[in-house]
């Protein structure tokens, strides 16, 4: 039995100058901290961990856009005709809430009116495309819709894909009777099938993936869905389907083997790439506009960072992935991005760029955290504090206008420091300024800079926080190394993995599992895939609380 003294402190301090503790697991990590005074500090509450896992609540997970689209693609695959874009309509659920930490968080959402409109349009288009009819069409089923066999086949095959399970005989009989009723009501046989298909493509079991489970955790079918959608974002492949539909995943050893099989080629692990993109947010560069005269090919900059990340995932997913992402000076560049890198003798392929430590020193990330015409060291610092250290930074107080006017002879950093040195500002800015200031080694399109506004830039600072007490650093390379060596940063990384793969921030009830995952991460020499495997197995095998509706 272990007791964790969790600092369930308020995520929002009054910014009186103290260094905040890490964001409590019970608070919404990165969900946008509330303003000063929004919450009173809560007392520390011990969480007692035993070997018995606490049950999880039953839930349904609202599908996200990639999962919905991949299911449709699977539908076309089943007919042997792969389509990347099977319909010229908006993919449902492509909107995300900016307050969500990760795009997996819509698992907690419902279906709003716009999403319903999108579902109606997609289901109509797809059903019309595949339902058997009098005229042949590329994707149309070829059987005679007037026959019972054709209707049964249509239901069987489509429901199997969209529900990720075989339908029951009762369900089949019900839908057959329904199609009969449509026909009796005047619909043609083909139209009756089309209407049945439309309802399947909007059915709650397709839109809300059920995780109802029982005392022994999720059912084999539910485990199959969990594995396929969480790890690959698609319905199950043939081997997984075979196991899932024959209770094969109820055995934990088999379950683990299947998780590992799906993660066998880490470079193909779509979910991990997606997690890293959302964790570091380099693609925000697409939202920052700059003077067209500047070297600023946003997509090529993204290509650079993703090439580097891909190499790290391939080489380090089993050991030290985060460390590599924070410190590696191996980069890729293209002709278009060479002016951003400004390295000597730029050559295609992988090169080492001294003084460019990891993702945060990539032009894409630097520009993503910049203004149209200058750096934004406060936002860069806030990212490190909140995302890498899981420590909250209160929102800008009401009434403060964050204008940074240029002063002759002063660098941007000096101006910011001058502007934020007052008693009302420094309490929060001490959390951000030095961290972001380290990246003043680069300008707002990611190119190295030694002077700014005519004065030499400074990149030195001190790091405070859990495990750090005014530890000095001279620039980005030392800062990133300090962070890469910090247990707090690695713990925060595991917390973020939890949030992404579970689709929500950890609650107080999750603390023991989270502590177990962090310990596993440390003992496994920073094995990211081991943590993901445990997250999947934990979700699959933990008993579900029966609810009383």
């Amino acid at each position, binding site marked *: 039995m272990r007791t964790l003294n969790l600092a369930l402190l308020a995520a929002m301090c009054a910014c009186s100058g103290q260094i905040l503790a890490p964001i409590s697991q019970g608070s919404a990590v990165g969900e946008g901290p509330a303003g000063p005074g929004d919450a009173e500090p809560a007392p520390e509450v011990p969480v007692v961990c035993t070997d018995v896992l606490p049950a999880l609540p039953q839930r349904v997970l609202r599908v996200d856009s990639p999962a919905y689209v991949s299911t449709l693609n699977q539908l076309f695959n089943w007919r042997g005709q792969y389509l990347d874009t099977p319909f010229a309509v*908006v993919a449902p659920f492509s909107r995300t809430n*900016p307050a969500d930490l990760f795009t997996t968080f819509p698992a907690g959402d419902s279906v709003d009116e716009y999403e319903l*409109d999108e579902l109606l349009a997609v289901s109509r288009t797809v059903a019309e495309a595949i339902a058997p009819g009098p005229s042949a069409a590329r994707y149309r089923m070829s059987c005679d819709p007037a026959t019972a066999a054709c209707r049964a086949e249509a239901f069987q095959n489509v429901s199997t894909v969209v529900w990720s399970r075989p339908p029951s005989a009762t369900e089949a009989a019900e839908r057959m009777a329904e199609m009969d009723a449509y026909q009796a009501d005047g619909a043609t046989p083909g139209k009756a099938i089309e209407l049945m298909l439309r309802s399947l493509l909007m059915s709650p079991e397709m839109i809300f993936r059920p995780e109802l489970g029982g005392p022994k955790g999720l059912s084999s079918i539910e485990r199959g869905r969990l594995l396929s959608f969480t790890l690959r974002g698609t319905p199950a492949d043939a081997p997984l389907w075979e196991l899932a539909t024959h209770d094969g995943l109820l055995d934990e050893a088999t379950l683990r083997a299947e998780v590992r099989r799906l993660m066998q080629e880490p470079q193909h692990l779509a979910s991990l790439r997606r997690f890293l993109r959302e964790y570091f947010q380099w693609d925000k560069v697409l939202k920052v506009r700059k003077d067209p005269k500047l070297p600023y090919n946003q997509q090529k900059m993204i290509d650079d960072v993703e090439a580097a990340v891909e190499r790290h995932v391939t080489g380090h997913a089993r050991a030290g992935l985060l460390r590599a992402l924070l410190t590696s000076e191996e980069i890729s560049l293209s002709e278009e991005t060479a002016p951003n890198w400004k390295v000597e003798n730029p050559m295609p392929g992988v090169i080492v760029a001294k003084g460019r430590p990891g993702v945060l020193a990539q032009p894409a990330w630097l520009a993503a955290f910049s203004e149209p015409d200058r750096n934004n060291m406060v936002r860069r610092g806030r990212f490190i504090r909140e995302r890498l250290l899981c420590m909250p930074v209160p929102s800008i107080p009401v009434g403060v*206008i*964050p*204008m940074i006017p240029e002063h002759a002879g002063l660098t941007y950093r000096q101006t910011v420091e001058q502007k934020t040195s007052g008693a009302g500002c420094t309490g929060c800015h001490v959390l951000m300024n030095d961290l972001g200031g380290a990246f003043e080694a680069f300008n707002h399109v990611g190119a190295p800079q030694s002077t700014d506004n005519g004065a030499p830039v400074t990149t030195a600072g001190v790091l405070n926080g859990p495990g750090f007490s005014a530890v000095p650093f001279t620039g980005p390379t030392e800062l990133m190394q300090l962070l890469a060596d910090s247990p707090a940063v690695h713990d925060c990384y595991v917390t973020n993995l939890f949030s992404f793969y579970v689709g929500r921030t950890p609650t107080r009830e999750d603390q023991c599992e989270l502590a177990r995952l962090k310990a596993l991460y440390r003992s496994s020499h920073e094995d990211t895939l081991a943590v993901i495997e445990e997250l999947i197995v934990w979700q699959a095998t933990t008993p579900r609380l029966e609810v009383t509706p």
Partner: protein
Amino acid sequence: MSRIDESRRRFLRAVALGSGARVLAPIAALLHGTAYGAVPTSKKVVFLSLGAGLPDVFLGRPSRTSETEWSFHPSLAPLNPWRSKTLIVSGLSLAVPGTQHSAGYGMLSCTPCDGGADADAAPRAATIDQLLGAKLSAAGTMPALLFGIDNDPTRLVHQSLFASGPNQPVPYPVRESVLFERLFPGSAAAQAGEADTKRVMTRLRTDVTSLRSKLAGEERRKLDGYLGSLDAYDKRRAAGACATSAQLGTDRGVVAELPGMLDAAVTALQCGMTNVVGCSIGGGNSHSHFPRFIGPHVGTIFEEQGFIADQGHDPTYMASRTILWKWLSDQVAAFLRKLEAPGPDGRRLIDDTIVVLYSDSGPDHHNGSSQRFIVIGDAGGPLRTGGRYLEGPTDEGWGEPPPNGMTVNSFLTALSTGLGVPMDSFGVVRPGGTSAPLAAML
């Protein structure tokens, strides 16, 4: 269904409409007398917002001795016919950091959002349109009809400006076709498939209800939300029958689509679908498509200028915005004329409507201080328009807004009071500010 509603619908179905118009103007006049009769005293409000700033020089300053001696800048001249029904309120303080595009949901919520200058940041409070909609549109099909335009071809729906609560942005279409589908699912174009859709919906309801019965708490509420969307669709379809001959315009592109969208809003008001309208023209950072955003810029020196930045009253910048606001005020004037179309009983929509014109980017763009609004119409009182110009004690203060007695909050609470929804306070104010209704407006 009430007796009045039933007769209204029967009347609407009986109306023979010509074809060719988008949401036909004649239908507006024909529907007015009967459809409007269902809710004869409901006040309406329309928020029209243009990104990229509304400079003070466009409003025409009053003399020191008279609040009625002022004249619009030529770019706003199309609004002159409604001058006597106009109230300009300027110099309003807003407790929202000034660098946020669309004031980060703050213009209509008076609450700073989280995320700094990120236009996609999440709201931290409900906006006034949603609060008013809950009261004024209770009998309609939606609290507020929201839409906008954006030149970005990848965006069909925006979510900025409007929110139903903390972290709950309300999406709105930025394409005429999406707005049309949302408003008129029962219109002629969709009629053919209505019976089919009804069958699908019936099946869906059964399935959703079945899964819902196995769940509790938050999980059950997800299914409730799905059922709620199905219900809302049915209501929209029924209300959309009011415009069975509505046709989607054939012109594409933002400039061509906005008039059709404003026409659709008029029809929605006449059909009783809602009493609150919000329109975002270039909001949520899409102002950065200016000047290419606005057709009248094509072929001028501004077309290749790139996006509008913080250039204040720079002559080039002002000239560019003059084109924007001339274009916008033409659209607003056309919209007002449609609201003025008398019904058979002689009553006109404009008599019950307040139109609020402003820029969600502040006076010059990126300004958190000295906000201004143009109000047209009083919805029958107690709002005092009369061609008045109210100016706060401070008008500039770029980047350093001092507190003053007049706030956007107090403007909105006075507006709300004018709409028959009394509100004592709203949003967050700076020290020294107040959100109590601005007495001079009432």
